[in-house]
């Protein structure tokens, strides 16, 4: 198959086993076009986070390959790949490790070699993009959980990535913080992969979804179609929350 445009993310036959021998991925194939916003759905333990860590080469494929805008994720391109793929981890406290928010956001671009005014501009722009420009001098632990999550997004945006990967972005967020984050993500118009088991959030944010279960992609399609497929959902430990109708938004519009 020859794609007209180079996909932003291309994963072929990706398999991976942990050092202790447990195998987590059993041949994952997926392709994300530039500018797409895609949800990666699946139950806990399906291998979602493991897959994400392959996209920027933190984990190395046991078999198969990963390409980011055509560049293979391999040792010689690691620096480039890590700039292009920004991962927002599940616990913002893991990602905000510097004494102040500003330093945290500067950490990535400084590793890319930026200094002085160029660095300061990057930091300001990234914090602006998530509406957190006024907290640059604060310590991360003085922010609310929702604010920390948005700053975590900024730390990644500051590297001007081509692809944004978010791991369970809604965990522990209250409804308003959840919606505010959705607003931020929509405003970015980056290629985005949202790893989540929050199915309503996937529907709200991502036109397309992939379902990962037991280390394989088992479904790929329009989010509302997948969520409306009761058999598929039940087979992969995905259930819509009580009172939730995936087709209601379509009917309403």
């Amino acid at each position, binding site marked *: 198959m020859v794609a007209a445009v180079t996909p932003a993310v291309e994963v072929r*036959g990706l*398999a991976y*086993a942990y050092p202790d021998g447990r195998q987590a991925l*059993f041949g994952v194939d997926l392709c994300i076009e530039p500018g797409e916003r895609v949800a990666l759905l699946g139950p806990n333990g399906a291998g979602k986070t493991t897959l994400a860590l392959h996209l920027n080469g933190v984990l190395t494929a046991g078999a*198969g390959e990963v390409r980011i805008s055509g560049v293979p994720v391999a040792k010689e391109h690691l620096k480039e790949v890590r700039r292009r793929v920004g991962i927002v981890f599940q616990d913002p406290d893991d990602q905000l*490790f510097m004494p102040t928010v500003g330093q945290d956001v500067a950490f990535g671009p400084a590793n890319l070699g930026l200094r002085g005014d160029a660095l300061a501009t990057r930091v300001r722009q990234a914090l602006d993009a998530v509406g957190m420009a006024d907290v640059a001098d604060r310590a991360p632990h003085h922010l609310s959980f929702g604010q920390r999550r948005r700053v975590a997004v900024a730390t990644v945006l500051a590297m001007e990535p081509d692809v944004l990967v978010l791991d369970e972005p809604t965990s522990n967020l209250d409804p308003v913080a959840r919606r505010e984050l959705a607003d931020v993500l929509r405003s970015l118009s980056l290629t985005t992969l949202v790893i989540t088991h929050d199915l309503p959030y996937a529907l709200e944010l991502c036109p397309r979804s992939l379902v990962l279960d037991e280390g*394989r992609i088992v479904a790929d399609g329009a989010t509302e179609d997948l969520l409306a497929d009761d058999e598929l959902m039940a087979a992969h430990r995905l259930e819509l929350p009580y009172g939730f109708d995936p087709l209601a938004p379509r009917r309403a519009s």
Partner: protein
Amino acid sequence: MHIPDGFIDAPTSLAAGAVAVTGLAVCVHKTADSLEERDIPLAGLTAAFVFAVQMLNFPVASGTSGHLLGGVLAAVLVGPYLGTLCVSVVLLVQALLFADGGLSALGLNVVNMALVTSFGGYALFLLVRRLLPRTRASVVVASGVAAGLGVVLASLAFTVEYALGGAGGASVSTVASAMVGVHVLIGIGEGTITALVVSAVLATRPDLVHGAAHLLPHRRLVVGPRVAPEGVA
């Protein structure tokens, strides 16, 4: 146990400072030599853990409580070099950020609570461990004994410092018997709690206990092609 300013005279404090700097330089060199970059965040978190554990109160006897000093615990968990660095950083931060322990006495405190406790304690740990069978229980017992004696070692180091440059007032023998006497009691608590903490970590993540690394089974490396999973073309 944190020595304040004015307890020990300036020359002795400066000499202890020099010993501390030398000891820490060795630790920095050793950890830079043998460990990866990963260990810096790990050491920072371990130091935060030591600090938190020093704030945690353990009951000693009805109504009274003590807290862990954690020098030997850190050495058994992450190794003596990294452990010493972690405890020293805790002391540095306590002195600078919380005015806990004198700034002029920082060298003394690092010598007593990091260098003497961690290295002396770790040496005792290795000794006791060698005398016992190769089991987890032996690691637990050895860490407890070493932690208890480590505290006594620290009080002996203090006595030596007092003899060299103490503020005077009391005879060295009075101070020695009082210090060591009190620290034998503290040592019993320190040893008990350290053994219990090590045993709890061993029960869940034995791979995280540096002092039990010799008990981990050697992982067999598979040579040859990775077992091809189904579905991989």
